[in-house]
């Protein structure tokens, strides 16, 4: 193992085989500084460019090795709460790669009827699934969808001659809700959770006023609990003239069983990279289409797509909020979304929510950690009790599974927010439960030293932030 054989460019074959993985930076392998000589006058160009210079086989190995230091959905169970990490069907990639779909965003509508037809069909499918009247596909992510929805609410109120200044958001909501509200210039009114983990109607009543532009809710909420009082909540918001927003992060739990539109929501976003199985891509791209009810359709972003007698057209809705993406959104992601929904149909969509909820409930039964709030749907929040939830997560890594989301929502001590999704069968859920339980019975010292079997041992986060080194240039300066 200490043999010099197999060591080149800092890469140690023997270490790799042992599972002890490390890959030098591109810049540590080979770089080249090229003098710049172009037809432009010298004063308009840089003098030189210094970047990695490697052969295709070297690059193929570099990225392949890096990929082997990364955990994907096909690597093992991925029960990351609130993220809906489901299997990404392979065929959707092939559909997205179709050459006929690779058109420029400025093409005249008459020459891209296929692309616009796909937009129209996906708008229609999503509207049906959410119980909405129309849907925009422009927002490139869930948070961008939230901002879009907030801007629509703002434009709606302003159109009615009202300048409402507040958005009400439950304390347990996703951080993006607060940030999106603030980005559009609203004040955030935080709604404390009730003792049962749901919206407390008295607290809601106290937080609503004629300043309320919007109440943002996710349902089931971040504890996985369905807001039983949703009809009452919708009517309370309506009574003060506010609008009701649905954060689609947890829509997987409701597919084919309940539609936000039927519950009184006026605006919603869909996280297609969660609910509709488009890949998360290591952080993105996703897409955050936004659905609205009839009275809000004039405010949708521009351009919008609709079918006419002579085909599909782009148009600017009458009171449009304008643009939320430079062009038309994350095209490749939208193609995959339509492919997935078409594959599943009514039956598959309703079975998805059934199995997602079945799996969460089955897994919760199998694990030794307490789950304080129930009945939950597609996810549950267990408590690590006196143990640091982050330690639990690190120890789970050694069992070949991805850990749950930790320490959030804060209403549960040392939270382990767990969402197995519908893709696991009983065998893999039993394996996952075994990993939870093995960790639950592990001593504190072992937990504190975990993980031991991953490409890197536990990483010093504080040190990274205290001394930010964000490029190989910064490393060279040391």
């Amino acid at each position, binding site marked *: 193992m200490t043999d010099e054989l197999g060591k080149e460019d800092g890469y140690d074959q023997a270490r790799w085989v042992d599972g002890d993985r490390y890959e030098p*930076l*591109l*810049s540590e392998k080979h770089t080249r500084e*090229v003098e*710049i000589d172009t037809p*432009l006058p010298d004063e308009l160009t*840089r003098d030189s*460019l*210094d970047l990695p210079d490697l052969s295709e086989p070297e690059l193929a190995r570099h990225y392949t*090795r890096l*990929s082997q*230091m990364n955990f994907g959905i096909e*690597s093992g169970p991925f029960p990351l709460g609130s993220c809906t*990490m489901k299997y990404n069907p392979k065929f959707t990639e092939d*559909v997205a790669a179709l050459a006929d779909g*690779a058109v420029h965003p400025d*093409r005249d509508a008459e020459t891209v009827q296929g*692309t616009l037809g796909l937009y129209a069909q996906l708008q229609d499918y999503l509207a049906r699934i959410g119980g909405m009247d129309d849907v925009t596909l422009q927002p*490139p992510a*869930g948070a*961008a969808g*939230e901002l879009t929805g907030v801007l629509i609410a703002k434009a709606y109120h302003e159109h009615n001659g009202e300048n409402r200044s507040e958005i009400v958001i439950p304390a347990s909501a996703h*951080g*993006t809700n607060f*940030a999106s509200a603030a*980005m559009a210039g609203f004040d955030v009114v935080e709604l404390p959770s009730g003792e049962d983990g749901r919206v407390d109607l008295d607290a809601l009543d106290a937080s609503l006023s004629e300043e309320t532009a919007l109440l943002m809710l996710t349902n089931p909420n971040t504890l996985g609990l369905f807001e039983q009082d949703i*009809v009452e909540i919708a009517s309370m918001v309506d009574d003060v003239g506010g609008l009701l927003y649905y954060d689609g992060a947890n829509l997987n739990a409701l597919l084919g069983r309940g539609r936000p539109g039927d519950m009184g929501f006026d605006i919603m976003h869909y996280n297609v990279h969660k609910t509709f199985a488009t890949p998360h*891509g*290591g*952080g993105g791209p996703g897409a955050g289409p936004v659905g609205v009810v009839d009275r809000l359709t004039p405010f949708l972003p521009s351009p919008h797509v609709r079918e006419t007698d002579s085909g599909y057209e782009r148009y600017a809705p009458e009171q449009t*909020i304008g*643009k939320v*993406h*430079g062009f038309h*959104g994350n095209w490749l992601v939208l193609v995959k979304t339509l492919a997935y929904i078409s*594959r*599943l149909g*009514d039956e598959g*969509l309703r*079975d998805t929510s059934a*199995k997602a909820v*079945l799996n969460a*409930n089955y897994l919760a*039964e199998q694990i030794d950690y307490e789950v304080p709030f129930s009945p939950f749907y597609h996810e549950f929040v267990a408590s690590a009790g006196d143990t640091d939830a982050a330690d639990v997560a690190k120890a789970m890594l050694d069992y070949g599974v*991805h850990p749950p989301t930790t320490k959030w929502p804060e209403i549960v001590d040392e939270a382990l927010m767990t969402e197995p999704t519908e893709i696991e*069968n*009983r065998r893999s859920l039993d394996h996952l439960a075994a990993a939870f339980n093995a960790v639950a019975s592990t001593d504190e010292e072992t937990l504190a030293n975990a*993980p031991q079997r991953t*490409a*890197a*041992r*536990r*990483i010093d986060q504080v040190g*990274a932030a205290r001394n*930010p080194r*964000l*490029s*190989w*240039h*910064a490393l060279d300066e040391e």
Partner: protein
Amino acid sequence: MGTYDTGSPYAPHTSAETEAMLETIGVEHEDDLFDIPEEVAFDGRFGIEAREEQTVRTEMRSLLGENDDLVEFLGRGHYDHYVPSLVNHLADRQEFITSYTQYQPEIAQGFLQVLFEYQSMLVELTGLSVANCSLYDAATALGETATLASRVRQTTGSRVLVPEHLRSGKRGVLENYADGAGLSVDTYAMDDGAVDIEALGDSIDDDVVMVYAESPTVRGVVEESLSAVGDLASNHDALFCLGSDPVALSVLESPGSVGADVVVGEAATLGLGTAYGMGLGMFATRDQFLRQVPGRLVGVSEDDSGRRAFTLTLQTREQHIRRERATSNICTNQAWVALRTAIHAASLGPDGLVELATDCIEGAAELAQRVDDIPGISAPVHDRHHFREFVARTDQPAPAVAGDLAEAGYAVHAIDDHLLQFCVTDTNEEHVDGLVEALSEVVR
């Protein structure tokens, strides 16, 4: 495939398994797991028919086949360069494409290192010291910069200045971001397609928090007085935000050297190709604004064994911690596109990047000359250096000319009554002869 017998092919439960699981839970039927009030429950009938995988592929191929097969000479912010097969195959490895944001860095070292290398390449290209690992697109990156400008400013200000020639979609996004931060967007005039320094000097005052310029501009013009823009901005305590892209930056003067505080732009110019406007927002800035950066940053640290390791860092800027006081609401980003951009840049290497950029300068100049040789049309309209694209003036109405060209199989921009715009890159240069011939016929 497999033994599932439920409604979704991706929910692999047999009936027996489902029964056993229900029994463990202690309910009879999976419907019993739902307590949705009856008045808002839904029966599942969306009217969407389930189709076999093969059927969906056939259907969607047929639908997209409705698009006309045109050779595109289109740009204006969305560009096509040849993407090597290496990029597709490596980026589609499941360990990359199906993974999540790197909140557990011990099992995400691979992606974190790729993003660190992407950030590093942008640092080299921009001459600025900090690059984030992606925003959605060039337009939202510009919008984020306006909000950053209003936060870092010592005194209050209420305006951002943008050039007369700017993509309307980009301006639209900027207006939405700016409005929320209490800013308005004003225009400064251009002179023959480039920044008019005198006009900018007249427009700017201490109320301006950010000046935006692009090089190349939306019309493909290479700016010649960026340092003067930087000086004007800095004299008024305004941020200088420069728009560009990684290919252009491979040869153009370094933004850091002309006084840019922030560089934004479309980084998917490398790595993605034509994708109906889907992009990758590039964002780089100076050290002094590090804690105001929107989006994710990857930094170096070490693990318990003392070895170098990568991790997301400075997360207290972000929405999941700082909530309404975060620097941005961005969460899901374009990480996988950044991965593609990094692989594409690495596969070109410095020589390949410079060669590609040089072709963008020569190709635009050559096509402009050939277009100018056609009676009834003159090009380039702006007596400037160009990159990838240029504007031409037509005697006939431009929309009609563009329409006739589409009939002949070529897509170009009609940007005004008598202005066309052409973009030429390595992916359409082989069709230049055909375009010139068709154009000669059309304007005859």
